[in-house]
């Protein structure tokens, strides 16, 4: 979308592979390390002011709140690296949350994995619609998913029609997913982490994963390399939809009361988590782990603001400011490294 004029690092690749490469690698890896460092810094600073920040229930709350966003960020990462974006995830989450929990409420004996399967299927169908329109129509995904954001939410409100699913109609075994913990870590967090790790591994180690990066990095080159762009993009959207569908079930288990508004306005927050986590908004680079850490950082920030007792009127402003600081810092570090790199490679050439 943007066509910024940028001076990129000019490195005589043939000249000095060893040390220069080191720096480049560092620059690229720093995207994630940087965000982890910021997170650590933030936790330390907050804890210094308010030691209770690190008590077990607060950690649990923070993880719980990060879980759904981190999970959604996995799907979003897969889409964004392919130079697309999925703004319909909040609506998909809402639809899946209601339909799956309403089904469970009506059929109390349903095994919980089946409920997840149902949510996944709902999300998958929505995601496939996004993917099909984007890939077949070859139209910008931002526009497509803004449209489906409205459509899916509309379908949701029509189906729900002002009803709601209440905690009392859901079995305890389902609701406890959102509260019970193993070794202090919430069950849904563990589940999500496993899926995110699998997703990250897939993106890094499988051809189809790498091809998504290739598409995002240079669609023309991808076509020339014989990559089935349409199919991969379709797959990315289907995956993102499926993840959003699963998130809907998690949402239902966690919050217990489900009406037609679940997941409203989540889309921009998920994109924000990805961006903070170092996923390049124009595709080609970034990792699911980074995005998940981004979601964790955002959840930590908002939790910290509550724990520090900052007036709730200030909360949103500080949160927005930190978001800007995070992306600016990322950029500033990248620029610094680039210019250091430039000078260094020049000195090496001169020497």
């Amino acid at each position, binding site marked *: *979308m*943007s*066509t*910024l*004029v*940028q001076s*990129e690092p000019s490195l005589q690749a043939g000249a000095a592979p060893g040390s220069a490469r080191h720096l480049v690698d560092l620059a690229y890896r720093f995207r994630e390390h940087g965000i982890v460092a910021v997170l650590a810094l933030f936790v330390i600073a907050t804890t210094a002011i308010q030691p209770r920040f690190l008590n077990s229930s607060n950690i649990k709350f923070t993880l719980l709140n990060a879980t759904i966003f981190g999970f959604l960020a996995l799907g979003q990462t897969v889409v964004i690296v392919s130079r697309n974006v999925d*703004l319909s995830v909040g609506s998909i989450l809402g639809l899946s949350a209601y339909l799956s929990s309403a089904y469970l409420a009506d059929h109390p004996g349903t095994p919980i994995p089946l409920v997840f399967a149902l949510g996944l299927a709902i999300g998958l169908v929505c995601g496939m619609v996004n993917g099909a*329109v984007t890939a077949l*129509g*070859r*139209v*910008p995904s*931002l*526009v*497509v998913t*803004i*449209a*489906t*954001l*409205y*459509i899916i*939410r*509309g*379908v949701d*409100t*029509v189906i729900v*029609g002002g009803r709601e699913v209440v905690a009392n109609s859901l079995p305890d075994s389902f609701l406890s997913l959102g509260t019970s913990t193993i070794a202090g870590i919430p069950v849904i967090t563990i589940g999500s982490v496993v899926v995110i790790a699998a997703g990250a591994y897939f993106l890094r180690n499988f051809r189809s994963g790498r091809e998504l990066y290739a598409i995002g990095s*240079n*669609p*023309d*080159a991808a076509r020339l390399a014989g990559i089935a762009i349409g199919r991969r993009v379709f797959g990315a959207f289907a995956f993102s939809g499926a993840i959003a569908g699963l998130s809907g079930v998690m949402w239902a288990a966690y919050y217990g009361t489900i009406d*037609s508004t679940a997941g409203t*306005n989540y889309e*921009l927050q998920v*994109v*924000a988590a990805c*961006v903070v986590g170092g996923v390049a*908004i*124009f595709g*080609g680079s970034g990792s699911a782990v980074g995005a998940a850490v981004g979601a964790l950082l955002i959840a930590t920030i908002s939790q910290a603001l509550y724990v520090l007792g900052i007036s709730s*009127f*200030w*909360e*949103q*402003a*500080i*949160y*927005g*400011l930190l*978001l*800007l600081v995070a*992306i*600016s810092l990322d*950029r*500033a570090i990248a*620029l610094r490294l680039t210019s250091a790199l430039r000078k260094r490679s020049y000195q090496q050439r001169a020497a």
Partner: protein
Amino acid sequence: MLAVIATLVLGTSVSSQYLSSYNVLSLGLSNGEIAIMCLPLALIIITGEIDLSITSTLALSSSLLGYLWLHHWPMPGIILTVLVLGGVLGAVNGLLVTRLGLPSLAVTIGTLTLYAGVAEIVLGSTIVSNFPSTYTTIGVTGFPHTDISYSAVFFVVLAAVFGLVLHGTKLGRSIFAVGLNAEAALYSGIRVKRVKTGLFVVSGIVSAFAGVLYTFRLNTAEYDNGSGLILSVVAIVLLGGVSIFGGKGSLLGVFLAVLVFAGLQNAILLTSFPQDATGIVTGGLLLVAILLQGGALVEKLGRMSVRAKASRT
């Protein structure tokens, strides 16, 4: 264009009230601010950037307006201050995007939150609604001697100005050039950064102005005014045929899209069509519009990605 006619026909056929003067008035009343904010956003999207913070600028302007009124400032002074504030907020976006080279999507998601947050700080739980009736009449009556609302009049006037600038002037040409190929624009002596920053500033001022109108129309200043509208604004601009990748679009298209959007919403309200489904219709329309443009887009995308590649490498 087709969509406008279709909407009018649909509207009149479903309800004889559709073209009544009262309805035309309320139609303009309820969409005026959104419509106004579409104008600078269209220009920004044509340069290849995006501004998602405009609705928060609206909220912050509304809050500041209320706050200063509570502190007994004279109204003309307040309005001026608010417009200046809008310019400053836009400049912050513009500088972050052009000086730091950050992607505008990310920056303005950030400022969307930040500005809304500052609005909350400014006004907190206070609601200001004792504005003088000289100002708040704009929410009730039409523009003198007409049945058209004030915000609709402002919209039409601003649309004409924006249209002339975009399609008639050197600046307008620069805006397209920047959106199509910022690097070539730079090499042609176009001040790319200044054009972009300037547009963000204009966007801020216009959004602040929309905030003033919004506040007077509802006779209410509160911190969450206008929240959640942003994607509607973006949707209208895209419906108007502006390419999200920049470089393509016309103000006439945006103007018509505003009419379609307003007309459609109004038509739905006047029928017993379930209003929950407004989103389905809006989204469906957007989808159809984009798919209709898609034929040409297939080829355009190819060329665009060459550009994107080159600007990234």
